[in-house]
């Protein structure tokens, strides 16, 4: 006689739910400071329903049943809990206490058939373990999304364009210059040139830790693009180590105007625009 585990557990649904909740109380994972007991009950019931539905579908041979509603329920719980400040361990413990409740019920119902009890317990245990792993994956995925969003924000705010003088822009670049950042810098710089009608841009790289051939390529591209627009681009803030690296790597910067300090770059810019800085005579 095939014991239909699904049906058995369905009948005992209420019992399982209660056992589960009291289990959470015992191991202190209820966290009613972060989520109301009401909500916990609703979430738990949803998960239990989905799980038992699938179990029934499987044991009556209606096909493997769709695991998706179960995963969906778990993901939903995972995400809400993560948002409310649950640690991934908290949420996983919650799922494991679900397993405890299921197995306890199973044990009580088919205790006179140890063979089947073992097989079925193992099966259920494996399935619930899968759910626990899924909660970790969801947590990590949402973390990665936060990191991505922050990366975008950092890229945007870390390349300010400063109007140093009428017609002169300065861009202090802080951090590494990769190809996607270069495109952002170029876009910013060029659109500011158009907006302010500036003819000279000073790119200060004292905040760029290392300049290899790739970074040099990006700098050269930026200078070329600026020239194409009809403006000039000066690179300043070149540290002695960078000058060494550039020469050792055989990078040709002869076509680019370079200055070691922002001050000398500014001086050059003023001269180009036929501007003079003098000490005032009058008091």
């Amino acid at each position: 006689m095939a014991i239909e585990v699904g049906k058995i557990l369905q009948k005992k649904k209420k019992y399982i739910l209660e056992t589960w909740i009291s289990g959470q109380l015992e191991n202190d994972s209820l966290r009613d400071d972060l989520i109301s007991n009401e909500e916990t009950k609703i979430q738990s019931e949803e998960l239990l329903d989905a799980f038992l539905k699938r179990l029934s579908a499987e044991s009556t041979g209606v096909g493997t049943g769709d695991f998706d509603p179960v995963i969906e329920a778990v993901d939903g719980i995972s995400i809400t809990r993560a948002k409310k400040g649950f640690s991934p361990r908290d949420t996983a413990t919650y799922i494991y206490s679900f397993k405890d409740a299921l197995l306890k019920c199973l044990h009580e119902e088919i205790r006179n058939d140890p063979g089947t009890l073992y097989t079925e317990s193992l099966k259920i245990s494996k399935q619930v373990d899968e759910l626990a792993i899924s909660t970790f994956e969801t947590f990590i995925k949402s973390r990665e999304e936060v990191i991505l969003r922050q990366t975008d924000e950092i890229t945007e705010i870390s390349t300010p364009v400063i109007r140093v003088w009428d017609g002169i822009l300065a861009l202090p670049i802080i951090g590494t210059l990769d190809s996607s950042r270069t495109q952002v810098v170029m876009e910013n710089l060029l659109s500011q040139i158009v907006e302010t009608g500036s003819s000279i841009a000073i790119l200060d790289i004292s905040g760029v830790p290392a300049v290899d051939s790739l970074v040099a390529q990006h700098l050269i591209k930026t200078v070329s693009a600026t020239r194409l627009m009809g403006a000039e681009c000066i690179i300043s803030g070149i540290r002695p180590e960078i000058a060494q690296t550039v020469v050792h790597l055989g990078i040709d910067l002869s076509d680019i105007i370079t200055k070691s300090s922002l001050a000398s770059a500014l001086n050059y810019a003023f001269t180009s625009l036929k501007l003079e800085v003098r000490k005032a005579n009058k008091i």
Partner: protein
Amino acid sequence: MILVLSKDEMAIIKEQDVVPFRNRVKEYAVKIRMGLVNQTKLITAASELVRNMLKYAKGGKILIEVVSQDRNTGIRLTFSDKGPGIKDIPLAMKDGYSTAKSLGLGLPGAKRLSNEFSIISEWGKGTTVIIVKWSNG
């Protein structure tokens, strides 16, 4: 694994087909919210390749697909013609090489402007070039 979200095809027979083609590509690029610089790079690369197709093969077909992979959405363009084909692909991919008095920047340039580039050609049978540009470059 690349998923295809939408498919569209255009035939290029004469010069006047180029502009509507460029506009159609732009439409799709705007739809997936591609930034302006990436849009410009994509359409410029497409322009190079469609001109090649007209010049060497008297036209061909272009498949425009909206694709997605992991978190990225992008545009994939497949240019197929039944023209004379390219005998020496590495040579054709060199900057400045041209068999028709042009600047010789079409193929290598299109590659630089795209995120992914592949070319298959058989001498006497035809050429297929596929490029992909992701929305966030």
